[in-house]
Structures are given as C-alpha cells and as structure tokens.
C-alpha cells in the first residue's frame, strides 16, 4: 500500500482485496469441492440422449408373404403454453382428429409443457394437421404394428400395445425376439433444447427385432376363414374354429376362430373375441372321441371290423343309466358302429378294451396334455385317471363324455390315422431369422411318436372313409378326393351339472385325399342353432375347404388322373382301382 493513498482509497482497496479473496475461496471451492455435482448438473443441461428405436421383426407366412410389418406414423402433441387461441385451435383440430372439441380444449388448458392429442394418426390426417400450421402443435414419429391382411390369422399373430409390446398370440410369445433392443445417441443440445447436429459424441446402434416365418399359408388361411365365417353365420353359432394341418409334419397351415377381430384395431373388439378357441377352449367332444376307443380296440385286436354288436334298437340301460342312439339300430358290424356313430355299439365294444387300456390310448393320442404348439394359453383338457372313474365312466368316455379336449388335440389325433399311426407335434413357427436371413432358431418337426401300427391306421382310415361315404358325414363328401373323418355332437353341461338338451358342441375332424392324405381339417362349432349335429353344421365347412385346398395344391380329382383308371369306393370303404379295359 503506497503512502500517499487517502484513507478512503485504502478502504476501497481493502474491500476489493476481501471481495477477491472471497471470490478466490469460492473459486477453489467450486473447482475442487463442488466440481463433480456441478459438472453433472451442467452435463444434464447440455447433453441429450436420443433413444434409437429398433424395428420390430416382420412375421411372414410359409411363402414369405408379410403378415405383420411395422410402419412409422405421426403422433400429434401440443405445447399448451405456446397456444394463444385455444378455443379456435380446439375446433380446427376436432374436425380433423375426430376427437370432441371439449376434449381437446381440456387438454390444451392443462398447465403442462407437453400433452398428447392423438397417437399414431394416418398419414392423411397428419398432412391435414400440418397444413393448419399452428404454433405449439407438432408431431413425433412412432412405430406402429400393421397387419395388411386384417382379420386373417389375427388369433395366431395377436397384436401389440401402444408401445409395441406384444399383447397376445405370437406377438406376445415371441416378444423378446421380435422387439429388438433400443439403441441410443448421445448428443449436445442448445438453449432451445434442440439437438446440435455436429456435436454427437456417442451412438449405440439399436438391434432390430428378428423376423419370424410361420407354417401358415395365407391363402389356405383366408379360405378357412371365409368358409368358417359362412358356417358360423349360417348356423348362428356362439363360437367356431377350424384347423388345417399337415398330418406328416404337424405344420399348421391354417387356424381360424370366430368371432374374430381386426388386430389393426384390437381395442374395438371385446376380449372374448380375441380368445384363440382352438387351443384355449376345451369341450366334451362327443362322438369324435370314438376314434380313440375304436383304434385301441383294433390295435389290441380286441375286436375285428366285422365283429357284430347289438345296438339295442336305440335304447340301452347300463348301471341304472339309460343311453340312447340318435337312430335306433339292431345288429351292426363294428366298422358300421363307428360309421353310424352308435353310442350303444361303441360302449359295448369299449367293455372289451377295459379301463386301463382305454386310458392308455387316451394318453397315447395326446389327450390331457399340451400339444406343445408355440402359441400362448394352450390348455390340456381334462382326462381323469381310471382310479377315479365310476362304473359309468368307461362307457361315457368311449363316446366322448367325461373327457374334455381342445380342437388342436382332435386334429393331432386324426393325424395319427392320416400319417400311418404316428402322433406328430404341431408347430406354427418354422424359424426365426435375423434381417439378413441368418437362421437364429429353427423349429424343426419333432420325431413323431408311434401310437398305433400302420395296419390299424389303415383299418381306421377305411372305417373313417365309410363315415363320409355312407355314414353320418355324407355332407363332407368331395367328389374325386374321397375324404374320411368322424362327426361329433357333444352335449354341454348345464349349471346344475346335467347334460343340456339345447346346447351342443358340434365337430367334424377329417382328412383328404383318402389314399394319400395331405391335410387334416378340424371344424368345431359351439352352440350352433337351429341344427346342431356335427354331420350337418361342420361337414359343409370341411367340404368347401377341402375342395378349395385341392385346387390350390393342384391335386386333381381321381377322375382326372387318367381315363384308364377308375377310382371308386366299395361298401367296405376301401378304395379300389380298377383297370378300365374299354
């Protein structure tokens, strides 16, 4: 301090020294003591993490036609504080977005920096909103799952929610494969929260979801859906389903349910419409289940196709309970017992099989266990152990009562006869592959399990051919292809535990062509009205689907194979090829 300074100047100098000393101390504190938290606050202010959304995988049918894809749509949002004339803006947007003016006004009046007005609007709607050029109304792109075929295969694929998470069907079951992994881009933002393009310092690329190839054929699926819809409406059924299956590989070629829904707008349908009845609903199959007792009896050589049974002219008392046939009959050979679906004949024959062997065949055919299909929500059905059976149980079970099954289990059981005696595991997913086509997971057909011998399977095919040829399923006949199958009409159980006389589950499970089966088709109708027999309500659906499948696969009817070969079916149901020497 120089000597000439006045006391006032000295005071100012002292004050400045103190101020700068304090600033210095503060600087040391900021630089050393509070550096970390302060730099974190600063970093949060200027750094920006932009999520990079992965592309959800595509779902293809077996011919690589897209069943589910992802498109980006605009979502409309508002920054209410930037909108001056809220009333007028609400009115303009209401006309375009299809939301009430009051609803939009309510959203715009909220004291928030950001509100959604409409999520994932159509490109046309987005264009019209953009044309209004309103300050404070903006867009953000969001991925939206889209199903080009609408209702077709909706129960198989399921759908996703607003955030693209799988909710039902394969979208749910394989969500972790389909949705991929979100990436991130770390950048710097300016004072107006905008990304500064040249200052990107780290980017983690998103991993797109894997694509999935199904065993479904979209053409067969649409045929099955159309014919099921016709049958469902014609017979005023409460529900219905159809399954088309390759009996040798277990590939599901089509699986449709009614009522159905559009996965593009799943919320518009009640939850009941979204249930996959083919695997989630179990029912008492009625006469369709006679195939189990019949094949067991033939395999164990307990009966021969020609063995005769007295069908008691339609009324049979057993253990204090009276059983009926829908058509009274006297003596019938065993093959005709199945052909005409005689309850009494089947029950009498089943006595020769016995409880334990009956149960063994129920299990061998895969009833009471999940088939293992890749769809979520599959149920097992109910098959009680023989220990718990009553005196009536063997009779009841042989005609499809006291057991519950799913439509898919019945289709698998019919495949046993079509493929020569093996139970195949059904599959609906063929493979999962990445975007460049590398296979990530292959769902190969599992080795089938032998249930009955080839001879028994052939014998059963003959009997089942007779059912269509001149039995209870004559309406299923397709000229030139000789299908076989079994009808069923199961009584539903009333709340008081008694069998209903007004509510039935009708079914028909068949295969075609007879000599070299290509398909097994199961048709189930829940509470059809006014007709309720499987042979009346389900067989027409089977017939039309079969006829179209044959055209689609260019399988010519027997009459077109050659002029020199005549194909006919004998009364035994056997196919005979006779040389025509004309």
């Amino acid at each position: 301090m120089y000597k000439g300074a006045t006391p006032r100047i000295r005071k100012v100098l002292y004050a400045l020294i103190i101020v700068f000393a304090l600033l210095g101390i503060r600087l040391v504190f900021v630089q050393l003591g509070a550096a970390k938290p302060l730099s974190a606050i600063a970093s949060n202010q200027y750094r920006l993490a932009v999520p990079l959304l992965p592309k959800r995988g595509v779902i293809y049918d077996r011919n690589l036609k897209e069943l589910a894809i992802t498109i980006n749509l605009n979502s409309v949002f508002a920054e209410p504080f930037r909108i001056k004339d809220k009333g007028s803006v609400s009115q303009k947007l209401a006309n375009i977005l299809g939301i009430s003016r009051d609803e939009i006004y309510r959203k715009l009046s909220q004291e928030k920096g950001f509100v959604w007005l409409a999520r994932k609007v159509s490109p046309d709607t987005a264009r019209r909103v953009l044309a209004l050029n309103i300050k404070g109304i903006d867009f953000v792109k969001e991925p939206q799952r889209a199903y080009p075929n609408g209702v077709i295969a909706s129960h198989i694929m399921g759908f996703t929610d607003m955030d693209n998470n799988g909710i039902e069907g394969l979208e749910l079951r394989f969500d972790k494969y389909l949705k991929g992994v979100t990436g991130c881009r770390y950048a710097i933002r300016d004072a107006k929260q905008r990304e500064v393009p040249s200052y990107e310092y780290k980017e983690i690329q998103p991993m797109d979801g894997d694509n999935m190839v199904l065993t479904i054929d979209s053409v067969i699926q649409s045929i099955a859906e159309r014919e099921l819809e016709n049958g469902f409406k014609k017979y005023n059924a409460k529900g219905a389903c159809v399954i088309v299956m390759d009996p040798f590989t277990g590939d599901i070629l089509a699986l449709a349910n009614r009522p159905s829904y559009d996965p593009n707008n799943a919320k518009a349908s009640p939850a009941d419409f979204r249930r996959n009845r083919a695997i989630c609903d179990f029912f008492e199959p009625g006469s369709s289940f006679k195939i189990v007792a019949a094949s067991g009896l033939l395999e164990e050589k307990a009966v021969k196709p020609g063995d005769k049974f007295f069908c008691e002219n339609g009324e049979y008392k057993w253990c204090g309970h009276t059983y009926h046939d829908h058509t009274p009959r006297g003596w019938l050979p065993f093959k005709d017992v199945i052909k005409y679906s005689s309850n009494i004949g089947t029950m009498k024959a089943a006595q020769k099989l016995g409880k334990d062997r009956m149960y063994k065949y129920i299990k061998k055919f895969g009833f009471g266990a999940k088939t293992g299909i890749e769809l979520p929500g599959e149920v097992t059905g109910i098959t009680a152990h023989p220990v718990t059976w009553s005196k009536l149980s063997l009779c009841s079970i042989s005609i499809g009562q006291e057991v519950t099954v799913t439509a898919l289990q019945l289709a698998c059981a019919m495949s046993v006869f079509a493929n020569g005696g093996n139970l195949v595991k059904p599959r609906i997913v063929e493979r999962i592959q990445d975007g460049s086509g590398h296979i990530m997971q292959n769902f190969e057909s599992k080795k089938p399990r032998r249930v009955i011998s080839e001879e028994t399977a052939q014998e059963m095919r003959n009997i089942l051919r007779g059912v269509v040829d001149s039995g209870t399923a004559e309406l299923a006949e397709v000229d030139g292809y000789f299908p076989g199958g079994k009808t069923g009409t199961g009584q539903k159980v009333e709340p008081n535990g008694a069998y209903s006389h007004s509510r039935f589950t009708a079914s028909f499970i068949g295969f075609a062509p007879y000599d070299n089966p290509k398909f097994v088709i199961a048709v189930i109708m829940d509470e059809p009205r006014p007709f309720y027999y499987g042979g009346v309500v389900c067989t027409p659906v089977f017939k039309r689907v079969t006829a179209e499948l044959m055209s689609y696969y260019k399988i010519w009817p027997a009459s077109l194979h050659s002029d020199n070969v005549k194909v006919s079916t004998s009364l035994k149901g056997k196919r005979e090829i006779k040389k025509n020497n004309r």
Partner: protein
Amino acid sequence: MTFVAVMYVNQQALIYQMGLKVKQNNDVYTKLVDHNKIVIYNVLNLRSPVSLERKLLAGKVELSMPSKWQVVKLVKKGPIASLFASGRQENRFK
C-alpha cells in the same frame, strides 16, 4: 494467434453447417423410407387374399375347378420338332 482463432471459429461453423445438412438429408431419407413403408403396406393390403376376394365378388367373377375338357397341357419339344409343331397344344387327357 488471431488468425488461428478465426480459423478455428470458421472450422467450427463449417462443421456445424455440414452437420445440419447431414441431418436435413437424413430427415428426408427417413421421410422417404417411412413413406415407402406405408406404400408397401397399402400394396400388401391390396394384394391380400381378403381384398382380392372382395373385388372378385364385387365383380361377380366366380372361379371354379376346370372340367376335364378345359384342361390342356403345353408339351415342350426339341428345337427341330418345335419348328414343325409350333403353336400346337396337346390335350393331356385325350
């Protein structure tokens, strides 16, 4: 020193401009890809069996399995034979 500072600022401005241009181009690219996806969706929608069937029904076009007399097979012949047999068709089921 001033020259170096000016060059530095100029370089930063150029980097920013280029970044902006890249971003703008990327936005255009994204927009086109999105538009392409929507067009693909529309094409798939039009090509779907349900849509085609609806059109056929609306046009009252009924398709069915051909009769025996309607089926012909085009026979592939050798180069010399085909010179003499061009345009001929053979009924597979004659």
